[in-house]
């Protein structure tokens, strides 16, 4: 059955004239949204894309040693390669030396196999004395490592443009010479510990925040306006103070000669010469992060509790439910959207928290974010920092997915 086309009064099909009438509004809407869209694109989508890209981008070495890699492609990796590889290497290195850019490949190749650093440095130093022809022998004469196939295998392994080696490193694994995935040596397995610690801290901070925030939010939602406003200011006050200031005040409070320790000693819980360490360990991280992230739990909870009519609890009681049963069966289930939102928010913030663990965490309290910062600023292994960041991002998305499966994302209320 075909629908009859409806015409507007001037004879143009209705659909068409509606579009025409709406066109101007649509254009306005697009223009209004455009600046924000561009802004998001520039500060959000590009950097994340760049991060994802960097974490797998391994083209640098391929670009810098083009002739070598072209020649090494045909090598079987068993015996020493033939002259063409060494010739390519000579030409590439010579070019790099003239442009003074060989430093970059040293770092990269040293990740692949330690020992490359001195090998390349020495070779480059002697490069001027090389004569034309028979490069293989000359290389081996400069450094006998050039006669060990492992180094050339390592060189060949660095050839692919794309690599997920950084991700393996992030979970304490690596490629061995035969490109098998193996665990790194036991004394170098630090990332698994870091990840577990990060998850652990995020979990407990979320739990503490929840335990503290639930009664506060309830109070906020039920107190008369003049008191609840004051309390709300108390909750929000930390927001208006610099994060650094707040963290430093915790350092003042928590230090060994600080007021909290004084109090503990005064109460006789610990001896004066045996003051507990409250800072530069996980305890400090827990305390400071819980305080700092508390508002992120209070606000969603408050906004949900505000909508729960007090007559519901009264109804529960009048129908014979004890206060506890009424709370568990009526009030608590209704606050789940707020709990979900608050926990998700706090957990996600906690998992990537940087400043506080860096300042009060010490060595045993540092988290994955501190490691990312270290690789960004100190080791300059941006690819690895990107890989860790991506893993964090994927982890957060996974949590979001699990939450969606368990509670349903439309069951979330942020305010």
């Amino acid at each position, binding site marked *: 059955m075909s629908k009859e086309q409806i015409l507007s009064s001037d004879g143009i099909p209705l659909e068409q004239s509606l579009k025409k009438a709406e066109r101007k509004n649509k254009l306005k809407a697009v223009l209004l949204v455009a600046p924000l869209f561009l802004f998001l694109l520039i500060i959000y989508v590009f950097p994340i894309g760049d991060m994802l890209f960097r974490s797998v981008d391994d083209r640098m070495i391929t670009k810098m040693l083009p002739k070598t890699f072209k020649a090494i492609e045909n090598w079987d990796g068993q015996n020493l390669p033939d002259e063409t590889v060494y010739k390519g290497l000579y030409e590439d290195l010579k070019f790099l030396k003239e442009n003074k850019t060989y430093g970059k490949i040293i770092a990269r190749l040293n990740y692949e196999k330690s020992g490359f650093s001195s090998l390349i440095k020495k070779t480059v130093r002697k490069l001027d004395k090389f004569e034309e022809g028979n490069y293989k022998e000359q290389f081996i004469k400069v450094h006998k490592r050039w006669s060990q196939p492992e180094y050339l295998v390592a060189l060949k392994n660095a050839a692919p443009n794309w690599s997920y080696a950084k991700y393996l490193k992030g979970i304490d694994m690596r490629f061995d010479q035969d490109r098998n995935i193996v665990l790194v040596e036991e004394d170098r397995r630090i990332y698994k510990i870091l990840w577990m610690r990060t998850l652990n801290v995020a979990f407990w901070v979320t739990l503490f925040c929840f335990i503290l925030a639930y009664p506060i939010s309830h109070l906020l939602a039920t107190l008369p306006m003049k008191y609840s406003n004051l309390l709300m200011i108390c909750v929000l006050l930390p927001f208006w103070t610099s994060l650094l200031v707040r963290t430093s005040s915790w350092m003042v409070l928590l230090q060994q000669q600080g007021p909290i320790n004084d109090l503990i000693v005064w109460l006789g819980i610990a001896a004066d010469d045996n003051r507990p360490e409250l800072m530069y360990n996980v305890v400090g991280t827990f305390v400071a992060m819980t305080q700092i992230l508390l508002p992120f739990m209070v606000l969603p909870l408050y906004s949900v509790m505000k909508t729960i009519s007090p007559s*519901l609890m009264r109804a529960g009681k009048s129908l014979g439910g004890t206060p506890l049963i009424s709370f568990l069966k009526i009030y608590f289930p209704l606050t789940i959207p707020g709990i979900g939102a608050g926990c998700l928010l706090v957990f996600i913030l906690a998992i990537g928290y940087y400043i506080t663990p860096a300042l009060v965490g010490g060595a045993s309290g540092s988290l994955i974010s501190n490691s990312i910062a270290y690789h960004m600023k100190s080791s300059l292994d941006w690819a690895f920092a990107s890989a860790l960041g991506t893993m964090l991002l994927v982890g957060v998305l996974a949590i979001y997915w699990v939450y969606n499966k368990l509670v349903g994302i439309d069951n979330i209320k942020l305010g």
Partner: protein
Amino acid sequence: MANDQFVRFENVDKSYDGKQLVVKGLDLDIAEGEFVTMLGPSGSGKTTCLMMLAGFETPTNGQIYLDNKVISDIPPHKRGIGMVFQNYALFPHMTVYENLAFPLRVRKIPKDEADKKVDKALSMVSLQGFEARMPMQLSGGQQQRVAVARSLVFDPQLVLMDEPLGALDKNLRESMQYEIKHIHESIGVTVVYVTHDQTEALTMSNRIAVFNDGKVQQLSSPDELYERPVNSFVAEFIGENNTFAGEIIDASGDKCKVKLNSGSEILANPIVAKSKGEKTTVSLRPERAIIDPETQMDNNHKGKIEEVIYHGDHTRLRVDLLGNKDFILKVPNSSNRMDIKEGREITIGWNSIDCRALDPK
């Protein structure tokens, strides 16, 4: 058999802030099986009384008895009083069935028995088949019925209703009034109903307690309340009312002569103001005054029609009578009174027995 003092308020005071009494020395008896409405303007203390009865507020002074037991120390969940709230207070995360089963589950009633009770309660409000719905999927009237069913499902002896029909539109409100009245009649539960809507109160109640200023002004049956208000607040609050302010100049037997502020004199029925020299407000229902009375009436006065307001079944006249420019008259809408026009002089008559001399305002 029936207990005349099933619910008893004995000298109950209530203050929230220690400065002002919301309820003042309230004494009120409610018989078993009765439908009593607490009626009054907002802030008159009626809801506070209900909350004290339910256990959500404690009396500042005095005692409340339920079935001869003092209930002040019993927490709300042990009082066994059903309650219907203003905004229904249905549990939004539970289905209709779960809402109704809640009071049964906390009482540990076995499931098959609970199912029967839920079914019975739902049939009472004709909502069978809605068990699996969520409250949000129901219309206002249906939610209201679920709330009523829930307050009755555990067979309480007493049900409190706190302006339960306030959020419904006019037609629905009227039909729900009858429905609640019929439920009350069929199961004989005691109901205490709070409202500020006088028609609602008049339609449904056995007795009405008119609240004002923290006190019960009058407690009596609807017709008594309307026909024989004991003071000018009740007369003003219930139904329409014409008033004249004046002073009694002669009181003899069942009639008294009142000199109005405008100078004219009328005959009235001394109720509150009885003796000579007392100030009074005289109250007269609009329907008791008749235009051009054919029978002999002891008050006959001329007035001028100021305004004619058409109301469908009747016409309302605003008349300037004895200095009162807002004297209202109701004329049934029949064809023989087509001569009513603005500006006309008419004679208005009424019997002094309907014209009650009450306390001055």
